[in-house]
């Protein structure tokens, strides 16, 4: 079928573009491009986790920035105050975040739809407030400086290209793991409970436990990304870890397509590139600088209107298949 050939061509082109993009910053020795790539990668790691939660388990989280922040702050505190080296600090921080996610996730099991959204929104705000207020621990609004670059033993990722490769590796690992999950027994259980919790229960799926597991998993991914962020930027403050970023994550996941593994990655890339573009252009063209929020908002609305089902499903939509996550979320 010509259409299927077209779809396959698009998919192949997409992959080629993907690999090209991945290689370009290194080939061009551009620290700027590599930095953008690092942020895309870090955002993508969180987005993939959130996509799992929303697209497969059908849950929503309007507070995921909190877990990202928890990862960043625990890495920051453990390395600067307790002198731990980055890898054990990340592991410890991820464990802390996982425990908090377990505690916060348990009440969400009984909630659905807007109640769930509100609950996650609330704890996102609560955690950011704690970042702001617990000054002895987090240094409040001034933030924590002097976070060392990430290192594994003697291997230090202290240059931009090295950090870029690190983030790529972690991203690749995350995508690999999530792909494995989706096609496995627990992955099927998740997709099943998304469609009908009752029917899944009747098949023997422990629905509350499955939801909790994926919630904690998505929090772990966010935490790892947060740690990478802290070690790259060498500074954390409460500002990036609030509702604004949670919304950005939501946008990345929904616009990219929550029901696929690559969708959130595409969404993260698009979003990060767009905001970078607006920022850079704003520095050069005054008009754009003052209107970047407006432009961004308009682009967001336009994208949502014209691409209701997200980008990554485009090839399969051309093929005429049913898309995996018709409603991308709730």
């Amino acid at each position, binding site marked *: 079928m010509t259409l299927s050939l077209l779809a396959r061509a698009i998919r192949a082109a997409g992959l080629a573009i993907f690999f090209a993009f991945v290689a370009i910053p290194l080939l061009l020795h551009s620290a700027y491009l590599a930095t953008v790539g690092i942020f895309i990668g870090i955002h993508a790691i969180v987005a993939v986790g959130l996509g799992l939660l*929303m697209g497969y388990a059908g849950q*929503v989280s309007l507070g995921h920035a909190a877990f990202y922040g928890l990862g960043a702050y625990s890495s920051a505190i453990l390395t600067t105050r307790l002198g731990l080296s980055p890898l054990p600090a990340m592991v410890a921080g991820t464990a802390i975040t996982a425990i908090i996610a377990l505690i916060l996730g348990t*009440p969400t099991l*009984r*909630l659905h*739809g*807007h*109640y769930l*959204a*509100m*609950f996650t*929104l*609330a*704890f996102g*705000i*609560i955690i950011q*407030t*704690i970042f*702001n*207020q617990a000054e002895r621990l987090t240094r409040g609004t001034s933030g924590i400086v002097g976070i060392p670059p990430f290192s594994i033993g003697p291997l230090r990722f202290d240059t931009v290209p090295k950090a870029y490769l690190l983030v790529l590796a972690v991203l690749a690992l995350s995508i690999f793991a999530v792909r494995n999950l989706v096609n496995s027994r627990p992955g099927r259980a998740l997709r099943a409970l998304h469609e009908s919790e009752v029917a899944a229960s009747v098949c023997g799926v422990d629905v509350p436990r499955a939801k909790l597991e994926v919630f904690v998993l998505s929090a772990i991914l966010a935490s790892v990304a947060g740690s990478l962020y802290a070690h790259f930027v060498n500074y954390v403050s409460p500002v990036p870890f609030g*509702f*604004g970023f949670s*919304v950005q994550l*939501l*946008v990345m996941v*929904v*616009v990219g397509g929550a029901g696929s593994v690559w969708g959130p990655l595409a969404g993260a890339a698009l979003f990060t590139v767009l905001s970078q573009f607006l920022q850079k252009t704003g520095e050069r063209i005054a008009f754009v600088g*003052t*209107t*970047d*929020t*407006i*432009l*961004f*908002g*308009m*682009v*967001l*609305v336009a994208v*949502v*209107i014209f691409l*209701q089902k997200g980008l990554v499903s485009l090839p399969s939509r051309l093929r005429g298949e049913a898309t995996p996550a*018709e*409603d*991308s*979320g*709730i």
Partner: protein
Amino acid sequence: MTLADQLLQYLITGFSVGIVYGLVGLGITIVFNATGIINFAQGEFVMLGGMAAAALAANGAPLWLAVILAVAATTLVALAMERLTIYQLRGASVITLIIATIGASLVLQGGAKLLWGPDAVTFPPFSGDTPIRIGGGGIAPQRLWVMGLATLSVVAVQLFFRFTLTGKAIRACAINRRAARLSGISADRMVRLSFAVSAALAALGGTVLTPVTLMQYAQGTHYTLTGFLASVLGGLGNGLGAVLGGVTIGMIESFSSGFISSGYSKAIALVVALIVLWWRPQGLLGRRQLQ
């Protein structure tokens, strides 16, 4: 100030801020009942109302005119937003619509910043700012305006929905869209009307509150989030519940700010709200869902 005076202060502050949260929550509820979505730009209407009124007053308009024009202008903006976003996305999923409203809120925020700059603005209180002495402390008279006008609007809206034909038509749409359409009610018109009413409420809240708290382009988000929390706390879909939820949150914020810590006050209000929802998942005035 004696403890009683302090308590009165907190009560009044809490109620005056809380009732504005309640207005936002009520607006969110009205739109939710008509469309099934949470309008995440609702708080921007508060912000726009306040800032527009400030701009008009700064340009010489008498206060009463500034307020009316600001509310009217915000309502028009809301209708434009509805036409350009919600209307375009008829039939899309809830999350898609919510993201569209988030995009719209960004446009409104950016627009406000562009028009009126990044600084906070204000205008003079309606009846001067000599505090009214009560007991050992004083209340800003504007707070009384806030409480009075906000309560009046809530009552007016409730009467509207209960006793006017249009109001009942909107409720009919919320309950059963198809049946309403078959009875000749245009769902689209009802949705637009709901947007208009909710925006007017929010804008009114914003204008009366601005002399007390000032208004800045980025403050809308706070009102959106708190309004959403208020409506869920009160029982999603229940307008009176949203108002009650808003007042509750405002009170808890005020009292915890006074007695515990002002930095943590918002978080404390949230924690209490979450505990209430844990104990009563359907909200304060919500009805328990049958399985």
